[in-house]
């Protein structure tokens, strides 16, 4: 299994967090809020496409809204493979963090 990049991981996590309302603008907002920095459109758009192609997420079109000039939202949801990938990622991360004893020093 391929490991996720940091950006992909973040995006997958935010899609999971946003539940049924995960589309480009909301994902961007969510991430910007948490990380405190502006994300440009393409930094989310391109990973999204790659993730969809790799079957980590799937998408459907939501209803059209007036704000979008009558265009429909493309809403993303995690697939089983996406969940698994996140799980693998997390366990790897956990293992690495568990062995990383100097954490306190950095924090301090």
């Amino acid at each position, binding site marked *: 299994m391929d490991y996720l990049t940091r950006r992909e991981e973040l995006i997958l996590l935010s899609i999971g967090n946003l539940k049924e309302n995960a589309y480009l603008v909301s994902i961007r907002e969510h991430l910007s809020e948490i990380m405190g920095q*502006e994300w440009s459109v*393409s930094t989310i758009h391109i990973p999204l496409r790659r993730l969809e192609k790799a079957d980590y997420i799937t998408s459907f079109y939501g209803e059209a809204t007036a704000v979008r000039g009558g265009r429909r939202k493309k809403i993303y949801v995690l697939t089983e493979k996406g969940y698994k990938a996140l799980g693998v990622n997390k366990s790897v991360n956990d293992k690495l963090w568990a062995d990383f004893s100097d954490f306190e020093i950095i924090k301090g």
Partner: protein
Amino acid sequence: MKTPKFFQWLFAKISDDSLENNIIGDIEELYIEKLKSSGRLNAFLCLLRHLFKSYPFFFADLINRRITMFMNYLKTALRNLMKYKGYSLINITGLAIGISCCILIFLYVDHELGYDEFHPDHNRVYRVNSHVKMGLSDMSFNAACDPLVPVLREQYPEIEDASRISRRLNVLMRHNDESNYEERLIIVEKNIMNILEFNMHEGDFECIFNDPGTIIVSEYISGKYFKEGSAIGNSISIEGKRYNIGGVVKNPPNNTHLKYNFILSFKNNNKSPDKMHNWANLSASAYIKLQSYVDGQKFAEKIRLIAHEYNDDYFKMKNWTYTTELLPVNDIHLYSTYREYEPKGNIIYVYSISIIGVLILVIACLNFVNLTTARASARTREVGMRKVAGAHRRQLICQFIGESLFLSLMSSIISIIIIYLSLPYFNILINRELSINDLFNPLIVSGMVLLILIIGFGAGSYPAFFLSAFKPLSILSGKTGSVRNSRSPLKKMIVIFQYAITVILITGTLVVFKQIDFMKNHFLGFDKEQKMTIPAGFRNNYLSIKDEFLKLPGVIEASASAGTLGRTAGSRTTRRTEDDADELIMDYIYFDSDFIPLYKIELTAGRNFDERISTDIEGAFIINETAARMLGFHNTEDAVGEYIEYGSRALHQRKEVIGVTKDFHYSDLQNKIAPLVMGFDPEYFRFLNLTVKTEKLTETVSSIKEKWTDQSLGEIFSYRFVDEFFDRFYVSEERVAKIFITFSFLAIFLSCLGLFSLSAFIAEQRTKEIGVRKTMGATLTGLIGLLTGDFLKWIIIANLIAIPLSYMIMDNWLQDFAYRISIGLEVYLVSFFIIFVISILTISIQTIKSALADPVKSLRYE
């Protein structure tokens, strides 16, 4: 409220899902939100920031997608190449051969046109030539009369500098105990450095002017005689005079009319410039450099009669008209009408070979276009599939053009390899020394890139635009599935055009060969077989020496002469005694009584010299028919017994004409036979003419050499066979013929290559038709006729077009020769036959194969 159109457009352009307008929707939502919270300007700036930040990502992504598609195109292109290995090979190598021919020819032409352009300011440097009209004769010299140069230098402000060069073709050089004839000695004045370029390898050019008895030698001589260490300081002797080597000059470039191995100053040559004031003496070439503001042509007009301005009385007295002509130094090689020291080029040959180069390239390109097109039309199904799978027309166009660009690029790469490998042979062919480095000049490189583009686009555009326009439905349902290539008028025209070019090249080659053969075998008016000439220093003992040589077993006849066939002793003004008005310049040869029988020269009137008649020796002339006619004798018999006067008028030297010979070609065949006077003056004799037996020739030659040394007739023994010597006159024509035959062979080869693959392709496309015809009972011959008929028709049409053209061209070429062949019908019959046979063979390989094929096989799959 909407995002500005500009942004919508930009985002749509770079992102992939423009169909769903997804991203645009997202952008718009962002924009509106921002608009509500912080106003129009901020929203705009925010969008702009997004755009800038996004562009690199989107762009990288775009390229990534393009590469994926490109890899797919490359894969299909390579698969297609592999599937039709034969065609691909023919296609690429054919074009590669065409390109390499064209580039090689370009190198040659560039070399020829670049003669003497290495001299700085070469466009201001001229050589002064002279044209002298004396009575009835016209003489041209590549030299100016001696006192003219100081006059030009001092009296004309238009001239920056003027200088003289005297040249010797062969000199006897001695170093230690080694004696050899070496070529090319030049004698110069100091200010020649201001006009022409001399690059020193070692030492200083001025040494020869500062230090008497000093000589400069070329790198070639220095490398030949002084292998170790520097040549400077050593001494050599030239024609018996000792010189110290004061410098080594770099070998002059290949493309110069002025080559040298030794440079001397006039001071060293006992011929101080201040002693050169005889207006009738043209001993040196004169070079001038004009000021940059002077118009060469106008100035040439101005000094046309300069000699008369300064010394009119003298020329009036001699009854000469002396005109001066200027020839730009870089035109000497190609345009000179004068006798030159180095082999001359000919602008006509340069033009014709350039045309041949272009024609070959055209043939190769047409092949390429024809084949690429033919092969592409078999790919209609691929086009249909791509269209169904959603390919845009633009993408298909790109695909086909890209593919043919790829092919033409491959051809160019192969052509560079071909050039690299064939350059040594090409150098032998054209007798030049081109190097592969000449290839990397900006003109060739840019020309090649342009060629790749033109050929790629040209060949790719038919399938690109024609095939991509098909409706996928009609392609896949098979309606346009098989395009009948043979019916396309473009293809017909291409084949006809190629064949017309080939016909012109073949007939041209045949005519050139016929003319050379004619010149070589033309009866020269004397017997040139088994004749040998040897320079010999007689000391009034020619009779006893002749007898000595006649004792040798291999020698049949012997004769002494001054000047010999192919090389006169000189020329003099000549006139009839009673007729004072007109003078003629005539060539002179002196020989003994055995010369005429030895060369089997025919006498039409009078008699040969006779040793027993004392008045014959130094008292009689034999003249040729042309001389008799020009002296005004209507009948050759009339000349016998008359007196003619020669040399300076004041001396009243005259001799009796005792015989008249038939005209014989004592010079080459390019020129008409000139008037010739033959005398019997033993004091001038310098040559021994021998008739030798052909068997045991080497032994005979060594015995002659032994005898020659015994009799101490000179320092170095050298000999020449008259027939070989005469053949040398046609070296440049022979070279042209070789170039012609090489390139016409290539042209024929390329045309056949094209024809071969085209016929194969058509036969393959008509497999089913042939299968059906066979089941319906068509005969083998009928089928072959069906398949070859079209091609033969085209070949005949091509011949009809090409024959008048080639006749015009070759007739024009022949006008250069004083004695020439007439172009016979057989030239055209032979060329037609050659092309016909080759084409039939080429086509039938494929047609017979497909006509023999089992119809069951070809019809089984539908």
